[in-house]
């Protein structure tokens, strides 16, 4: 469980990045963190991971204040996947890269192998386990980042713009995997994204930040099909939601839209 209580944060004095943020993410949720560039999304997740600490307020992970913790203390609770996959690569082979975390945590070599094999299999990277990570495609590097985070078996995954730069097939595969992880294994997913179609289709809750302030906390359906000024918040309504609103039906994706319209027509 992640909780932010009255969070205020600034990198430089006098320039607030987050102002009075209050939110609680329970175990098993699938949350999309939305907002325009520079709205404070990444900063908020950095606070959850103890990469930065708030100027005032409290960040709680499983009820414990993270003020005196460092990211290493939270590594087996929260898996954090950064925006740029290139900067996360530390080893010479895909296997070694995923094994980095478990080895740092001093697991036995058998456990390391099992954890790594499971993570690679989940991300469909088993065939590439002996490849040089820097030669992988962008999408594969993204999957490698997720596999590396999964290798420590965290209860929560924070993914920073994971769908950026991926083709449609890779994106769908990644999102379906995350959905399965969330639904079958109860892993909490916090997804930072600018892809509203992904939000509408997969997320069950949306948190919107604008200029460091929290302006919305609810379901993606309410966000996109309600009367909120989403365009003013730097967001775009998904195409399915725009069409659904025009036809006065409710739909999260094109298939749902077609089904709803067909049903109405009948």
């Amino acid at each position, binding site marked *: 469980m992640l909780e932010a209580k009255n969070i205020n944060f600034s990198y430089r004095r006098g320039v607030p990045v987050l102002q009075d943020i209050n939110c609680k993410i329970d175990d098993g949720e699938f949350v999309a963190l939305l907002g325009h560039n520079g709205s404070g999304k990444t900063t908020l997740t950095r606070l959850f991971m103890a990469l930065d600490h708030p100027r005032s307020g409290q960040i709680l992970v499983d009820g414990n204040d993270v003020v005196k913790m460092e990211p*290493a203390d939270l590594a087996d609770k929260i898996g954090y996947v*950064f925006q740029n996959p290139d900067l996360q690569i530390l080893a010479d082979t895909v296997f070694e890269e995923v094994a980095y975390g478990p080895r740092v945590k001093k697991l036995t070599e058998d456990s390391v192998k099992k954890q790594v094999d499971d993570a690679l299999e989940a991300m469909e990277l088993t065939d590439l386990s002996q490849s040089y990570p820097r030669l992988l495609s962008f999408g594969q590097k993204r999957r490698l980042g997720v596999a590396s985070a999964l290798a420590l078996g965290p209860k929560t995954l924070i993914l920073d713009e994971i769908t950026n730069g991926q083709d449609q097939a890779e994106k769908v595969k990644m999102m379906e995997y995350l959905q399965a992880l969330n639904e079958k294994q109860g892993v909490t997913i916090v997804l930072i994204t600018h892809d509203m179609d992904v939000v509408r289709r997969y997320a069950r809750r949306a948190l919107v930040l604008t200029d460091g302030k929290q302006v919305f906390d609810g379901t993606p359906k309410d966000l996109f099909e309600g009367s909120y000024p989403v365009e003013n918040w730097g967001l775009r309504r998904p195409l399915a939601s725009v069409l659904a609103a025009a036809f006065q039906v409710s739909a999260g994706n094109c298939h749902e839209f077609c089904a709803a319209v067909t049903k109405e027509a009948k």
Partner: protein
Amino acid sequence: MKITAFSWIIITLAITAWVFILPVKAVATILVLQLVLLLYVKHNRMMLAAIGGLGVFTGMMVLLQMLFGSSLTVSLIGGLRMLVMTMAFLCMLSTTKIQDIAKTLVDRFHLPVEYAFMLTTALRFVPNFLEDSSVTLDAQSCRGYSNRANALQHLLSYVVVIRPLVMRAVAKSETLALSMELKGFGANTYKNMPREQFTLWDLLALLVVVVLSTYPFWAKYFQ
């Protein structure tokens, strides 16, 4: 008060000579003037960190000299000289645009354009390099690596980070080379820009350079 890049380069080079020819008290005075200038130009956390970093590095050099048998006075004077020299470069970089330095090196010092560009690009990439290293260190700690334990572990964390950073720098340099070619980088790159005009401050600064650089001569003459 605006001094051109040409004067700054001359002053910086002159200071590296002054630290050896001027008395220690004069070198210490230069250090104070440098600190005043730096804090006047920028008094933010980054500048304080840069000055602090140079201070720590100087301290290490002093200790190293003492370790190899130099006396405390000699080591401190050596440290002071090194600090003043490095601070001169910091002064130049914080008061002058990198493009102006490159242009002056090509225009007035007749340095080949490729070398001038190499020098300035190296400086321009330092902040990117620091930013990348910070993200990689963060990624490392997110995967369980704690550097809280001791200084050695902290140092080791950088060893792991060096390779990804070098690989990334090589990739970046390739992209930069390509984009430069596409933008028509060549011999006329800096020559088409307007020349900086000398002001009274430049003449004054260069006069001070001449006076202080000939100190051993006139000190002997007036004695």
